[in-house]
């Protein structure tokens, strides 16, 4: 199995779910009170977050529809400060699995994108616009906005640091 397929493999998620269900079945037999209380807790959380999932789904659809790799790559080719701006925005808006972006970034590196900007792009991928509703639900608006701003600054720090540590090689 290739590395890409290994990363893509979703089976482990199902194994994880089945393992947890198995634990619930065992607990339900050994101590039904704990099993029932845990299930009630689960229903309470699931009930709270289902409406948030609908918003997440809509945002994911919009992001898939409007933001294409072509759109991002086009803007990553800008110059000067504009390049930094588009690298940050490109990272935030990029979607899909991270390994999909490695070959594209390697391609852009050959066309002049330095290691710092690649790191900056990858760091900003951590900010997921479609997932903001669920982050706000748990941590508040203020927290999410502050975290996003601090993370953008951290991505710039990381970019400068990596540019100093690694010489760009063709």
């Amino acid at each position, binding site marked *: 199995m290739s*590395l*890409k397929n290994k*990363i893509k493999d*979703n089976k482990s*998620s199902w194994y*994880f*779910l089945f393992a*947890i*269900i198995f634990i*619930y079945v065992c607990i339900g037999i050994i101590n039904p009170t*704990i099993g029932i*209380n*845990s299930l009630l*807790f*689960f229903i309470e*959380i*699931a009930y709270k*977050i289902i409406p948030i*999932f609908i918003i*997440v*789904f809509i945002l994911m*659809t*919009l*992001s*898939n*529809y409007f933001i294409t*790799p*072509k759109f991002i*790559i086009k803007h990553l080719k800008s110059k000067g400060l504009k390049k930094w701006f588009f690298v940050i925005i490109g990272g935030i808006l990029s*979607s899909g699995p991270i*390994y*999909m972006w*490695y*070959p*594209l*970034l390697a*391609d852009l*590196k050959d066309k002049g994108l330095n*290691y710092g900007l690649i*790191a900056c792009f990858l*760091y900003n*991928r*951590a900010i*997921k616009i479609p*997932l903001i509703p*669920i*982050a706000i*639900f*748990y*941590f508040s608006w203020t927290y999410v906005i*502050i*975290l996003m701003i*601090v*993370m953008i600054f*951290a991505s710039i720090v*990381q970019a400068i*640091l990596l540019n100093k*540590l*690694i010489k760009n*090689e063709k």
Partner: protein
Amino acid sequence: MKSKIEKLKEKRPNLITAISKAAKGLGNALPMIFGTILLVSFLSTIIPKSLYTQLFSKNVLLDSIIGALIGSVSAGNPITSYIFGGEILSQGVSLIAITAFLVSWVTVGIIQLPAEATILGKKFALLRNLSAFILSIIVAIVTVLILGVF
């Protein structure tokens, strides 16, 4: 003949493709999300809140290091980390530890490290992940400090 990268660059989805891609993305994450919620529910039922407060000593640096370490070795859709982080926050775990956990979950990629090293270079991959780990601790401390001001 066009390379895979060229084909990918040219891809422009229609609305149906965008919807099915979103459904697939969320659908793939669902087993992990439900598993996490079930696990959190179970742990919340059996573990007394005092244990979390014992594990996280309220030492800013130590808490953020523990959070970042757990986040770094974890993998999967970030939505799972929000749910897990949000639920254990109510169990008494410090916000600094949770922030470091959330940030390292998405910025440090131990599982993707071999792929990243192969395609973008070993030195780059190692330095990027190491600096991302350290930054997750700094980001956590700075975020919670600023949050305290507001």
